[in-house]
C-alpha cells in the first residue's frame, strides 16, 4: 500500500494537534427548562368520568373511539395511550375498603409525562422530539424518519406509532396541548374540562408547592410521595395519591435522568471529534512506519 511521506506527515500533524488536547467531557448538564408548566394529578379526586379522554380527543382531532366515552366498562381493561388516544383512564383496586366494606377504586390518568430531561428527545435521531421552554415535549413530524428509537427509549412506554400507515406514519403522544398552553391563559384540554379538579395546570414549581401543602394538610390521607418530582430527573406531569403508586400501575424509577449516561458517553467520545481524529492520526503514523519499513526491505525508498 503506497503512502507518500508528505501525506503521512500531514496525518501525524492532525494526530498531534488533536491528541494533545482531548476535550474531555465536562460533567453532564441537565437541559431542563428552569420554569416550565406542569400538571398535578390528584388520584384521590379523580372519579373516572373519562371527560378528559373526550376533551383530549376533541382538541387533538383524534378519531372516535370504538367504545363510547360514557361506557365505563372499558375501565376494567388496563389500557395504554395509543395512536388514537393520547390519554386513558384506568381503574385499579388497591385493596382499600370504605366504611361499608366495599372496595374503593383508584382511577389513574395516563399520558406522556413530559419529562424534564426526556429520553425520547435525547434519543431521537433527528431531534424531531424536543423539550420546550413551556414544558411540553414537542413532536415535529417534518423531521421524523420513523425510526422509533424514541419509543424504545421512553421509560414510561408512551410514544405510539401508526404502524398501519404505509406512507406517512407518525409518532403519536400527548402534546401537552402545546398550542393552547403557548397562549396567554391557555390550559390543556383535559385539565380545563375536569369537573372535580383532579388535574391542576400551572407552573411546575408552584404545583410542587401545592402538592406538598395538600400532603401536609392531610397526612393521614396522602402518601408522602409526589410521583414525577424526582423520577427520571423530574417530569412536568406529577401525581399525588392516597394509595401506593406501585399498586396502581406506576413503576419505581431511578431519580437519575435517563439520557445522562448515554450523553456522557457520546460527548466524552465524540466532542469535537477528538477520538476519531486521534485514532486516525495514530493509525496513519503506524501505517506510514510500516510501509516505509517495507519499502526499505524491498530495496527502494519511497
Amino acid at each position, binding site marked *: 500500500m503506497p503512502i507518500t511521506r508528505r501525506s503521512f506527515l500531514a496525518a501525524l500533524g492532525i494526530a498531534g494537534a488533536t491528541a494533545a488536547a482531548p476535550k474531555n467531557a465536562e460533567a453532564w448538564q441537565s437541559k431542563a427548562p428552569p420554569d416550565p408548566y406542569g400538571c398535578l394529578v390528584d388520584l384521590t379526586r379523580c372519579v373516572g368520568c373519562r371527560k378528559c379522554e373526550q376533551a383530549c380527543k376533541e382538541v387533538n382531532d383524534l378519531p372516535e373511539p370504538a367504545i363510547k366515552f360514557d361506557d365505563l366498562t372499558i375501565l376494567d381493561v388496563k389500557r395504554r395511550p395509543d395512536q388514537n388516544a393520547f390519554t386513558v383512564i384506568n381503574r385499579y383496586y388497591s385493596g382499600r375498603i370504605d366504611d361499608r366494606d366495599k372496595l374503593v377504586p383508584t382511577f389513574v390518568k395516563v399520558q406522556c409525562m413530559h419529562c424534564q430531561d426526556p429520553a425520547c428527545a435525547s434519543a431521537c*435521531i433527528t431531534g424531531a422530539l424536543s423539550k420546550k421552554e413551556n414544558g411540553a415535549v414537542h413532536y415535529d413530524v417534518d423531521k421524523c424518519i420513523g425510526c422509533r428509537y424514541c419509543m424504545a427509549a421512553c*421509560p414510561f412506554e408512551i410514544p405510539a406509532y401508526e404502524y398501519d400507515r404505509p406512507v406517512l406514519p407518525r409518532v403519536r403522544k400527548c402534546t401537552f396541548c402545546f398550542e393552547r398552553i403557548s397562549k396567554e391563559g391557555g390550559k390543556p384540554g383535559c385539565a380545563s374540562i375536569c369537573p372535580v379538579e383532579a388535574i391542576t395546570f400551572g407552573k411546575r414549581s408552584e404545583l410542587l408547592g401545592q402538592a406538598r401543602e395538600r400532603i401536609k394538610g392531610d397526612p393521614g390521607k396522602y402518601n408522602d410521595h409526589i410521583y414525577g418530582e424526582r423520577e427520571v430527573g423530574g417530569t412536568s406531569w406529577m401525581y399525588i395519591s392516597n394509595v401506593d403508586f406501585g399498586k396502581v400501575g406506576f413503576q419505581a424509577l431511578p431519580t437519575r435522568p435517563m439520557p445522562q449516561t448515554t450523553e456522557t458517553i457520546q460527548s466524552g467520545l465524540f466532542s469535537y471529534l477528538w477520538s476519531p481524529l486521534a485514532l486516525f492520526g495514530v493509525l496513519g503514523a503506524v501505517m506510514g512506519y*510500516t510501509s516505509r519499513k517495507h519499502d526499505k526491505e524491498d530495496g527502494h525508498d519511497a
Partner: protein
Amino acid sequence: MTHRPQPVAQPFWTPGVLVMLALMIAAGVTLVVRYTYGLSAVTNLNNHYPWGIWIGLDVASGVALAAGGFTTAFLAHILGRHYYEAVTRPALLTAALGYTFVALAVFFDIGRSWAIWKVVIYQNHTSALFEVAMCVMTYVTVLWIEFIPVLAEKLGHKIRLLAFLDRILDKTMWVFIILGVVLSCMHQSSLGTLMVIAPTKTSPLWATPLQPLLFLTSAFAVGYPMVVVETTIATSSLKLESEMNVLTPLSRITILLLGVYLFLKVGDLIWRGAYATLLDGSAQSGSFLVEVGLGVILPWVMLLFPAVRRSRRLLFTAALLIVSGVMLNRFNVFVVSFKAPYATSPYYPAIGEILVTAGSVAAIFFLYRLFVTWFPVLSAQRQEVSR
C-alpha cells in the same frame, strides 16, 4: 506463495443459487406488502415493542459480522502484514455487501423510508443512533471506494471512469483504509450505546454502561472468525483450495481478542453484581448462558489447542461458534433483553419479518457468488489446477 486474486471459474447457476433466488423473491413480495399496507401488515411490531429482528438481527448483527472488513484491513494494510492480503479482498467484499444490506434493513424498518436523508440535515448529536447512522452511511461509501481497484482490474479497460478512479486511488487509498477502521471503531461502539438509554427496560444481564466497549471488543474478536467462516464456506462450495496457511495464524490472534472480550464481559457482570439473575431460569438468563458459554468460552478454549487451529473442520466449528455467539449477543441486547413494562404479550418475529431477513441473507450470498465469479476477489487456487 501469494496467489493472485482471480475470478472463480465455476458455473454460476446451481440449485443453491436458485434457492437463494426464491428467498429473495419472497422477501421482495413481503416488502411490496409492507409499502402498500404499512409495517403492521408484515411485522409483529407494536407500541410496546418498536424494534424487532430487522433492527436486532439485520442491522445489529449485520454490522458486527461485517467486522472482518476493518480487522483484516488493519492487519494487512496498516500493520503491513501483507501475508494476509489473500483474505482482505473477500473480507472487504463481505463487509461492503453486509453494510449495504444493513443500510437497506434500516431503510425498510423506518416508517418514513423516503425521509432517510433528513438525518443528514437535522442532526441530533446527543443521539447514539445519529452517530451510528452517519458512520454507516459514510462507511458504506468508503467500502465501495475501497472496492474500486477490484472492479477496475476486471472492467478498467472497458469503463474508462473506473480506470481513472483507480489511478487516483492508488495514491489516496491509505486515507480510505484508515478512515474505514476509524469509522468502524466509532459505530461498532455506538451501536452498543443505543440501549444504554433504557436501563429500566432491559435485563440487567446486558444493561451496562460498558456496553459500547463490549460491542467494540466483540467486533474486534469476531472479525477474523468471520473471515474463517466465510473463506471456508466459499472455498468448499466453490471447490477451491482451503486457505489454512492464512486462517491458522489469524485464529491465534483471535485467542487474544476474544480473551479480552471475555474478560471484560465477565468482569462487568461481577462488578455490577448482575450475575445474581443468572440462574433464575428465565429465558433471558438461558439466552445469556448460551451466548457466553457456547459463543465465547467454548470456542476460546478450543482455539487454545494448536490441533484445533490446524484442523479445517475444528477451526471452522470454533469460528462458527464465535460468529453465532456475537450474533446472539446482538439479538439478546436488542430483542431478548428488552422488557416492555406494560406489554401484555411478548414479541415474536412475524413470518414477514423472517422472510425479509432470510431474503437479505440470501441476497448477500447471491451477490457474493456473483462477484467472485466475475471479479478477482478470491486468491485460492482451483483444486483442479493444483492437482
